[in-house]
């Protein structure tokens, strides 16, 4: 499974980068996120509970960052466990591109699934991933814009922002060296954490939903399907890997404003 997408955020690239690296922001934006703690110099530990209708899945995982080129790109890989629901591995590439006063965030998530889950394939995983990503970005955009408006940044940060603004025309062609000082708090997660966690959750929940139709639940008393889903996850979800086998079909998930708003309001209600 592959998922690519982009999200335009009405804030300068430096502000977006800073927000991506702020555990508080991420905690507030990841649907159902219960905790998000820095782990080591280049990683995060996260726990989240996702509710889809009556189904809820608790998930804990760790995410490592590498190839960081502030404020332009990251790569991440992550793995996690959903307890009885199984375990999963995944990864993502994230790029930020300045676009006038705004920033366009491109993401590409690759998930290599083996075993029976690979046979299941599935749009429903995509749908769940899309829902979760939609909620994340809706909240994230809101949060970044709000912070921009609220916080008159302290002098050094402001200086950096000005610098970034001044440099903008050249940013896209000349990547900054990673050594440029940036307002990065301890640990540096960012969207990678968000998307990593989202992806893994999506896979777990998608597995439930896919499994279901084997016999069905809706008053049919047929939950064999769910059991299959669970088994499948336990057996096969262990094999998400970043960027493998490019010949796999790519699903492009484009999130228009309407969809995001609709999904976000639905999920907000579910997650309170």
């Amino acid at each position: 499974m592959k998922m690519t997408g982009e999200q335009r955020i009405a804030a300068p690239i430096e502000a977006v980068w800073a927000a991506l690296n702020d555990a508080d922001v991420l905690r507030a934006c990841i649907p159902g996120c219960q905790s998000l703690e820095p782990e080591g110099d280049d990683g995060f530990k996260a726990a989240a509970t996702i509710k889809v209708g009556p189904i809820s899945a608790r998930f804990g995982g760790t995410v490592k960052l590498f190839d960081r080129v502030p404020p332009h790109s990251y790569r991440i890989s992550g793995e996690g466990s959903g307890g009885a629901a199984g375990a999963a591995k995944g990864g993502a590439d994230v790029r930020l591109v300045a676009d006038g006063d705004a920033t366009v965030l491109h993401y590409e998530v690759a998930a290599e699934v083996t075993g029976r889950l690979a046979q299941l394939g599935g749009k429903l995983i995509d749908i769940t991933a899309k829902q979760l990503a939609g909620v994340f970005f809706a909240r994230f955009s809101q949060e970044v814009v709000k912070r921009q408006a609220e916080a008159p940044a302290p002098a050094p940060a402001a200086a950096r922002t000005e610098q970034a603004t001044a440099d903008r025309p050249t940013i896209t062609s000349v990547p900054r060296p990673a050594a440029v000082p940036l307002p990065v708090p301890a640990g540096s997660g960012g969207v990678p954490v968000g998307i990593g966690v989202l992806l893994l959750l999506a896979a777990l929940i998608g597995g439930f939903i896919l499994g279901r139709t084997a016999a069905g639940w809706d008053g049919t008393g047929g939950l064999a399907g769910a059991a299959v889903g669970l088994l499948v996850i336990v057996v096969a979800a262990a094999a998400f890997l970043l960027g493998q086998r490019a010949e796999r079909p790519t699903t492009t998930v484009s999130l228009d404003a309407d969809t995001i708003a609709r999904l976000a309001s639905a999920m907000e209600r579910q997650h309170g």
Partner: protein
Amino acid sequence: MKAAPFDYIEAGSADEAVFLLGEAGTDAAVLAGGQTLMPLLALRMATPTVLVDINPADDMAGIARTGEGVRIGARTRQAAALRDPIVARHLPVLGEALSHVGHYQTRARGTVGGSIALGEPAAEQPAVAVALGASIELRSSRGTRQVPAREFYLGPYATTRADDEVVIAIHFPEWPASSHIVFHEVARRRGDFALVGLVMLLDVRDARVERAGIAWFGMGPTPVAATTAEQALTGAAIADIDPRELAHLALAEVEPSEDLHASAHYRRTVAARIFERRFRTLAGGITA
């Protein structure tokens, strides 16, 4: 295979259910027939802290005619709806759909409102509600609202119902008793969820379509209304309609899911075939 601990409270009426759910917070769940929730609890895929049991709420059960159509209380058992004379006379397509829901033993407990509230994309009852243009009555301590079924479903098990809202009833609008109905479900075994499902109602006068209601189930993340085909049909003379072209239009809104049970291509192909065949038969009966 044993549920995690939870608290259990009985709601003796709709008002009690609304009050209790409002008090219980976001980790509460409504227990209706339990034919989905109980397995989810047993598998620990659902872990609510409180169950609000609406089975004792007798005021939530019952089927009645209203000025606008038929009102079905959310806690009405599927078995009761299946043998109800009002359903047989005024909602025959629901009766046919119910005979495909689960099994004899699960219909004895399973409720109409439970299935509507769950929003399983391959289930029969939500698709009937969407096809007929039903609306769903939701109540919370904040008030009562009616949501059209066509706006209620957002994704698999995701609906516009808020955590503190109770589904009180489903309101089915009046369709003339002479309406032509099609209910077609393709599943491996009776009682399974649909791989492809179609609900269609046509109100035909003088061989001309007055009104059409069409929905698919098992064909995407929610039941899907075939609005393009509905619009094309409205006002059209039956004899002028090309069934194949119409089947093509009927799939305009559909983006079938792909899983272990069937590929998207299979679902699309089968859907087009059953639509065309059933429409041809129906049209033949009218123009003959």
